[in-house]
Each structure stands twice: as structure tokens, then as C-alpha cells.
């Protein structure tokens, strides 16, 4: 039991390292590296868009938008600010806002631009992206089911907080406090390792 868990973690660790190395090659316009990034994340981004309410044709189209952006912005990916999956999630989220919510993601672009120029990595961020991602994964595994449900509905299914509350027949305050608890656990995981 313990042995197989270790083996799985090692395989995941290698995968995450691979994607950082692949992104470095994508920056050099390496199409086969880009294809490997697409093969892993493309179907996950499609799943995200289907869960968010896009029909299959639109989900497919958004996947293409996301990877056009991944190629163009490859030079802005900085491993010290997080795993490749986090970076692709933020690109997918922004395009989801533009295309599914029909709002502007410009404020997110502004913040990203400020981060690129201004932010010195702090002690936590200097932890390897891979190590951080594993801590986040660990925090997710330990999350009570009711908290996990709420954050999946928010992040993956793109449900507004108020709609999560009505779907689960909970007061809005309970949804908020479950989100806060999930975040607190994540923060604790990341901070205890410095």
C-alpha cells in the first residue's frame, strides 16, 4: 500500500518536471514539445469547458483558443510562480470569462503584467513549482468532501457562489465558509514547508 503510493507520487513528480522542461522547449518554438503539452492538457481543458456548460463544438473551439494563447505567451511562463497546470488553468479561466461569461478578462491580464514586472518571488514561491503542486495536491486529498464539492463547483463547473448555495440548498454564508476552510488548509500546507 505505502509502496505503491510512493511509486505513484514519483511518477507524478516526473510528469510535472517534464512539463516545465517541455515549456522551456515551447519557448524555443519546439512543436513536438508543444504537442506533448497539448496531448496532456488539451483534453483536461476540454473537460473543464464541458463542465462549465459549453457544448462540445464550443468546448473544442475554446481548447484551440487556449492553446493558441499558450504558444504565444510561452515566454511568460515562470516556473517559480507555479506549475504548468496552474498557468494553463489561468489562461483557460480567462478565456472562459471572455467566451462563456461574456465579460472581459482584461483586469486579469493587467495583474499578470504587473506580476511579471514587479514581483520578487517570496520564500514560498521559491519552493520548486513541482514541490508546491504536490503540496496543493496533498491538501486537496485531505479536504473534507463537502469542501471539495464546493470548490469543484466553483473552479471546474464555473457556478456562481449564489448558485452553488441554491443547488446544495445551503445558506450563502456556509458556501463561503467552506471555501475559506479549503483555502486555509491549502495555505497551511504551503506555509509549513518553508
Amino acid at each position, binding site marked *: 500500500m505505502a509502496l505503491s503510493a510512493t511509486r505513484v507520487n514519483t511518477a507524478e513528480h516526473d510528469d510535472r518536471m517534464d512539463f516545465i522542461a517541455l515549456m522551456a522547449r515551447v519557448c524555443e518554438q519546439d512543436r513536438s514539445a508543444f504537442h506533448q503539452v*497539448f496531448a496532456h492538457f*488539451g*483534453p*483536461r481543458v*476540454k*473537460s473543464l469547458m*464541458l463542465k462549465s456548460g459549453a457544448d462540445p463544438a464550443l*468546448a*473544442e473551439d475554446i*481548447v*484551440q483558443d487556449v*492553446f*493558441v494563447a499558450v*504558444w*504565444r*505567451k510561452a515566454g*511568460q511562463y515562470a516556473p517559480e*510562480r*507555479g*506549475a504548468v*497546470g*496552474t*498557468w*494553463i*488553468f*489561468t489562461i483557460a*479561466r480567462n478565456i472562459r*470569462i471572455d467566451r462563456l*461569461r*461574456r*465579460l472581459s*478578462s*482584461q*483586469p*486579469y491580464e*493587467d*495583474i*499578470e*503584467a*504587473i*506580476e511579471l514586472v514587479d514581483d520578487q518571488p*517570496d520564500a514560498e*514561491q521559491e519552493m520548486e513549482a513541482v514541490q*508546491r*503542486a504536490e503540496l*496543493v*495536491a496533498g491538501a*486537496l486529498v485531505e479536504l473534507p468532501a463537502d469542501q471539495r464539492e464546493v*470548490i469543484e463547483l*466553483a*473552479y*471546474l463547473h*464555473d457556478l456562481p*457562489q449564489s448558485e452553488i448555495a441554491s443547488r446544495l440548498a445551503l445558506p450563502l454564508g456556509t458556501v*463561503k*465558509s467552506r471555501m475559506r476552510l*479549503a*483555502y*486555509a488548509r*491549502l495555505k497551511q500546507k504551503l506555509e509549513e514547508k518553508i
Partner: protein
Amino acid sequence: MTIAHHLDDATLMRYASGDLDEAFLVVVASHLAMCDHCRHAARKAEELGGELLEEAEAAPVQAGSFEAVMNRLDTAETGDAVQPSPRPFGSAGSDVPLPLARRIGGRLDDIAWRTIAPGVKKHVIATQPNSPSALYMLWVAPGKAVPEHGHGGAELTLILSGAYRDAFGIFGPGDIADLDEHVEHQPRVEDGAPCICLVAAETPIRFKGIVSRLLQPFVGI
């Protein structure tokens, strides 16, 4: 800039998951432009999204999907690469955070205020029709006290200049008051300078009664 009052964790997660309407997003992003602490915190909330994406089951893409991406890249104009804008504030000499500067220009002095009550001026910022919350700026005179009041819905107030004080403390430039619909407070602007702030407010239920109508100008502070 020392910032004492930050975003609620639940608000950070709404930002990270993409669940803020236009008005709230502009206020949150304007605070993030001014606040390293919340920028780092937002990144953690985004890492949660990254891991959920990583763990999501894969939905097969269509055959030829990757080739379609490459084809779009090969045929696209080259000039549309994103150019990062380097400064937290709109431009040199600006006192307005970048996400707000896009809406009102670079200087607080240039805002066209409208007086709505003695010592209180307002400037409404237009938002898209599918974004129900209101976005506006308030100018409140030095020393002005606002009667005790609640809010019709959740409300986010970012101080841009000057300061006010209420039961939660002193709120100065960069501070954010992240209040839910149940909070009541009685702010008073500090002496010496007007307080200028940026507000996102959920559309309130219609105010009833003469007292509420008299207080309506003060909603937002």
C-alpha cells in the same frame, strides 16, 4: 504603502475561479495592483485551480485538433502578441491603479464628479448589461460622518486617497473593506483630506421608507 485591510479569502477564491462580475472584478484587481500580499494569496488560490485541472478526467479532443491550433498560429497576423504593461499604476505620474485607469484615465483630479448630498460626490462607471453590480467612485468631504447603515448586498470598497474610520479600524489608501450584506457600519472620514474610494455593490433591493431613502446616498462607504 502599508495596507492593513485585505480581501476576504472567499473573495480571493471567486477571483481565482473567475466568478466575479465586472464591477467586483475591477475593484478586486485594483486592490491586487496595489497589494503584494493579496497578489501572492490570489496565486495560491489559482494553484488550487491548476491542481483541479490536473486531476480532471480527460475529455477526448477531436482528431486534427492540434493541427487546427498550429494552422491558426501559422496563418495569424504576427502583430497581436500581448505586450505586458509594466506599471501597477496606469502611467507615469498616475495615482490610479491600472485596472481602474482603463476606465477613468490616469488621474483622480480629472474625474467629473456629481454632487449627490452635502459633502458627497459620486462618479458612476458604466459596466456591461450582463454585469449586474454597480461600479462607482465616491468623494466624501474631510470630517464627514455617515449615519449608521447596512447594505442592500455585498459591497467592496477600495480607498484610493484620504481615509475613513469605523468600528473595523482606519481605512487608508490601498485598504479594502470587503463587507457582506449583513454588516452595518458608521464610517467617518478623517480630518484634513477628502476620502476618495472605488466601490462595487450588488444591486440593492429597493429602499423602502423615508429614512432609508435619505441614507441611500451613503450606500458605498
